[in-house]
C-alpha cells in the first residue's frame, strides 16, 4: 500500500516524540493515532495479530510503573494513605502525584510499544530488508535467510523433543540436554551446508568477473583501513570534546571530518555492489502526502520544545499543577500521524487481501499437528 520509506518516516515521526515527551496528553494522541492506523491498515496482515500482545505488555508496564513509583517516591502533597515509616524504602506517605508520575512513565513505554507494533503490522518485512543501503546488503541477505530459517528450526526442535520423549528420555538435569541439542545442532549445520551449496549453485555473488578480482580486492582492504581510521577519528573527536578543556573546535572538526570520510567510503562501497530490485515499489502521491504530514508533526514537536517548552513538559509534583499543559497546535499536528488510515483499502482490495490470508490458513489446516509434515 504505502512505500517502505513512507513507513520509516512515519515510525520516526511517531517514535521520536514518544521517546522524548513525558506529557500524557501528547502521548495519548500518539497512542490513539497509531491505534487508528493499525485498525485501518494492519489488521489483515499475518503479523498483525501480535499487535494485541504488544499492547497488553505495555499495559502491564503501566501497572507496574504506577505501583513501583507510588511505593518508592514519597514526594507530593495529596496523600492517599501511609505505610509505617519503619518499613524500608516503601514506608512513608503514598501520594497521588507519585502514582500519576508512574502512570505517565508507563504510558510512555506503552506508546512506544504501540508505535512499533503498528509499524511491525503494516510494513512489508522483506521490502524493509531490501531497503538496506547498498553497502550493507550482505547483512540484509543474512537477516532474510535467518527469517526463513528460524521457523524450520522451531519445527525441528519440537520434532526432536517428541522423538526423544517416546524413547524414554526425561529431562532431569543439564546432562539430559545433550540428546535434544545434538540432533538440533547437527540438523541445523546440515541445513546450513545445504543452503550454502544451493546458493553456490545458483551463482550467488557473481557480481565480479574473475579478471577484475585483483584490484577490487586491494580496494576492499583500502576501504577497511579507511573505515578504521574514520572510526578512530570519531573516537578522538569525542574524547577531545568531553575531556579536554578548550578542545571544542578541534573536537567538532575531527568529528565532522571523520563522519564525512566514513560516509564517502560507505557510499563508494555501495556503488560497487551491482544488483537490481524486483518489483521496486513506486513512490506515489499518497506517499508524498503522508511523508509531509509526518514531517509537520515532527517539526511541530521540535518547534514546541524550542519556542514554548513550558507547554510540552509535564511533572505532577508540586509546585506544578496536576493538570498537564497543552499546546493545541502541537496536538493538532500529532493527529496528522493518523493520516495513513485515511487511505484505507477499498472494500474490494480488502476482500482480496482477506482471501489470500484465508487461503494460507486453510493450507495450514491440512497439515498434521506438531510439524511432522515434510
Amino acid at each position, binding site marked *: 500500500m504505502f512505500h517502505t520509506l513512507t513507513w520509516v518516516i512515519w515510525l520516526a515521526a511517531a517514535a521520536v516524540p514518544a521517546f522524548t515527551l513525558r506529557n500524557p496528553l501528547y502521548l495519548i494522541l500518539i497512542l490513539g493515532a497509531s491505534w487508528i492506523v493499525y485498525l485501518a491498515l494492519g489488521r489483515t496482515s499475518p503479523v498483525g495479530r501480535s499487535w494485541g500482545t504488544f499492547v497488553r505488555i505495555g499495559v502491564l508496564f503501566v501497572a507496574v510503573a504506577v505501583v513501583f513509583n507510588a511505593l518508592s517516591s514519597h514526594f507530593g502533597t495529596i496523600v492517599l494513605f501511609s505505610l509505617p515509616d519503619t518499613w524500608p524504602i516503601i514506608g512513608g506517605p503514598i501520594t497521588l502525584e507519585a502514582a500519576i508520575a508512574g502512570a505517565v512513565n508507563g504510558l510512555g513505554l506503552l506508546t512506544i510499544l504501540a508505535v512499533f507494533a503498528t509499524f511491525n503490522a503494516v510494513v512489508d518485512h522483506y521490502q524493509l530488508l531490501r531497503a538496506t543501503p547498498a553497502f550493507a546488503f550482505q547483512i540484509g541477505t543474512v537477516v*532474510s535467510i535467518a527469517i526463513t530459517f528460524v521457523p524450520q528450526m522451531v519445527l525441528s526442535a519440537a520434532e526432536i523433543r517428541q522423538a526423544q520423549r517416546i524413547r524414554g528420555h526425561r529431562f532431569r538435569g543439564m546432562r539430559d540436554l545433550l540428546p535434544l541439542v545434538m540432533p538440533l545442532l547437527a540438523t541445523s549445520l546440515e541445513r546450513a551446508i545445504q543452503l550454502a551449496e544451493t546458493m553456490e549453485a545458483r551463482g*550467488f555473488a557473481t*557480481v565480479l568477473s574473475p579478471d577484475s578480482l585483483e584490484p577490487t580486492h586491494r580496494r576492499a582492504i583500502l576501504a577497511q583501513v579507511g573505515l578504521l581510521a574514520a572510526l578512530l577519528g570519531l573516537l578522538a573527536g569525542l574524547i577531545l570534546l568531553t575531556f579536554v578543556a578548550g578542545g571544542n573546535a578541534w573536537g567538532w572538526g575531527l568529528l565532522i571530518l571523520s563522519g564525512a570520510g566514513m560516509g564517502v567510503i560507505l557510499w563508494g562501497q555501495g556503488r560497487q555492489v551491482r544488483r537490481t530490485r524486483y518489483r521496486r515499489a513506486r513512490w506515489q502521491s499518497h506517499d508524498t502526502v503522508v511523508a509531509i504530514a509526518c514531517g509537520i508533526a515532527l517539526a511541530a514537536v521540535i518547534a514546541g520544545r524550542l519556542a514554548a517548552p513550558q507547554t510540552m513538559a509535564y511533572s505532577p509534583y508540586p509546585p506544578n499543577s496536576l493538570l498537564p499543559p497543552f499546546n493545541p497546535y502541537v496536538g493538532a499536528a500529532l493527529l496528522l500521524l493518523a493520516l495513513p488510515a485515511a487511505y484505507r483499502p477499498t472494500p474490494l482490495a480488502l476482500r482480496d487481501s482477506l482471501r489470500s490470508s484465508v487461503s494460507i490458513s486453510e*493450507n495450514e489446516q491440512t497439515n498434521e499437528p506438531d510439524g511432522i509434515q515434510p
Partner: protein
Amino acid sequence: MIGFDRVTYRYPGAQAPVLQELSLHVEEGEFLLVMGPSGSGKSTLLRCLNGLVPHFYGGTINGRVRVAGRDPVALGPRGMADAVGFVFQDPETQFIVDKVEDEIAFSLENAAMDPMLMRKRVEEVLDQLGIAHLRHRSVNTLSGGERQRVAIAAVMTLQPRVLVLDEPTSQLDPQAAEEVLDALVKLNHDLGLTVILSEHRLERVIQHIDRILYLPGDGQPAIVGDPRTVLGQVSLTPPLITLAKALEWSPLPLTIKEGRQFVKQYEAHQQRASARAPSTTEEGLPKALAISVEGVSFSYNGHRALNDISLEVRQGEFVAVMGRNGAGKTTLLMHLVGLLKPNQGRVRIASSDSPATLDTRQAAIDEIIRVVGYVPQNPNALLFSDTVREEIAFTRLNHGLPPVDDTALLERLGLAAHAGQYPRDLSVGERQRVAVAAILAAEPQILLLDEPTRGLDYQQKEALVAFLEAEKTRGRTIIMSTHDVELAARCADRVVLLGDGQVVVDGPARQVMSESLVFSSQINKLFRDPALLTVEDVLRLHRPPNRDTITDVPISGASLS
C-alpha cells in the same frame, strides 16, 4: 550438450575413486535418468555438471568435462550457474527468502538484471511450472511438491540449458512426486530442455525418458542405454519390470498399458489364476487385543484431524494405515503412543504381560512406551550418539533396562558392520534402521512405524521388507503408516484406509488393495485379480507347486548387507 571423457574423481581422504574412467555423451534436449544403489556416485556425477564437484567438495578430478561448451572444473559453480540449473533433494533447505515470488527473483536481482526483463522472466517461469497461484505465499506454508516446483522455478529464471535434479522426489509422497515429475516432463517436451534426473521412483518417469545411465558402484563400469536395455540388465527395478523379466516377456513392458498385452496371452495360457488363489489368511483362534481405539476424535488448530475413529488391532497383526497427505495417519499413530491425547473417545493398550489395559489419557507416557515403540518419520530427530551401539544403550538406559549384547539385534537389521560408526554418516536406509534399532532396544510388543520407506531405494526397501517380515513371524504387532502401495502389498495383513480423519475402509490387505484404483499395487493393476498383489504371488502360481523354493523367490537382489 554434455561430454564426459574418461572422468575419474576421488573425494578428499577417500581411498577408492567414486567415479572411474566414466565417459558419457548427452545430446541437447535429452531426458537422461541416472540410477544406481545408494553410494554409487549418482550425486557426485550430477555435481560434476555444474562444478560443485570439485569446487565445493574438494578432491581430485581427472579427465575432461564439458557442459554447454564450458568447462565446469575450471569455472566452478558460479561460472556455470546460468548454464546449469541444479535442484537438490531436500525441499526444506533450498530457500533463501521467505516469499515465493521473491525467492524466484532472488538470483536475478543478484545478477543485476534489468527490472523489466526480470518481471517478464518471473511471470514466464511461474506459468511454466504452474505455480502462479502460489506467488504471494510464504515457502514455509507450502507442501513438499509445491516447494520442489518453486525450487525448479528459481533455477529456471536464469534460463539454463541443462536442468540437473538430484533425487528431487525422494522426500515426497507419491502425489507430490507426480506433480514434480510431470512438471519436468513438460519442461523437457515443451522447451526441449536437457534434463538429467536421478530418481528412485522409476514407475512414473520411465515412459518419458530417453536413456538411462546405471551406476553400479564398487568400481564397476557404468551402463548407458535406452530404458529397456538397461532395465533388462539391472536388478533394481519396479515390480512390473521384475515380473516381466521373471516371466521373460519381451520386449520389456515399461507401462501397465504395455504390460496388459502380455497379461492377456499369459492368462489364456495359465487358465484362470484366481482358481488357485493362495489363501494366506489362515483363520486361527482370534488373538488377544493389542490396541483398541474407541471413537477417537482430535482437533488441531480448529481442524478436525481425527473424526470418530474406532479400530481394534490384535496381537501379531501387521496393519498398514494408508491415505493421502493430511488424512490423519501420523495423528493416529501419535495417539497410539500417547503423544497426543484424544479430545473424545479413548485409546487403550493391552500388554501381554499384565491383564490390565493402559488408557493413554491416564497412563504416563513412560508406561506406554514400555509396550509401544514408535519410529518417527525422520530418523535424524532421534540420532545423537557417537556410535550406533551407544544409541541402543541410551534407549535401554532410559527404560531402566540392563545393558544387553546388541549383536543379535544389529544383525537382524543388517547393521552389524556399522555398530561402531557415527549414525549420521550412514545412508538414509541405514539411518532409518538405526532408528528402528534404537526403538526396538526397549523390546516393545507393538511397533509403530511412520512412513518407513521415505527416501529409500529399491534395495534398501527390500532390506526393510525382509526385516519387517521376520519381525512379524516373531509375533510382534506392527502398525505402519505408509504411502508405499508396494510395501503394504508385500507385508501387511490388513489395510486401514483413512480419509479426512475417518476410517474409509478397513479390511484384509488383498481385498482393500484390489478394490482400489489409487491404492493398488502395480501387479494388481496389471492382473486386476485380488489374489495377485505382488511379484511373488504371480510367480507362486507360475512355478510348479511341488518345488520347495516357492517362498524364496529371488526378487530384486534383496540383501541386508
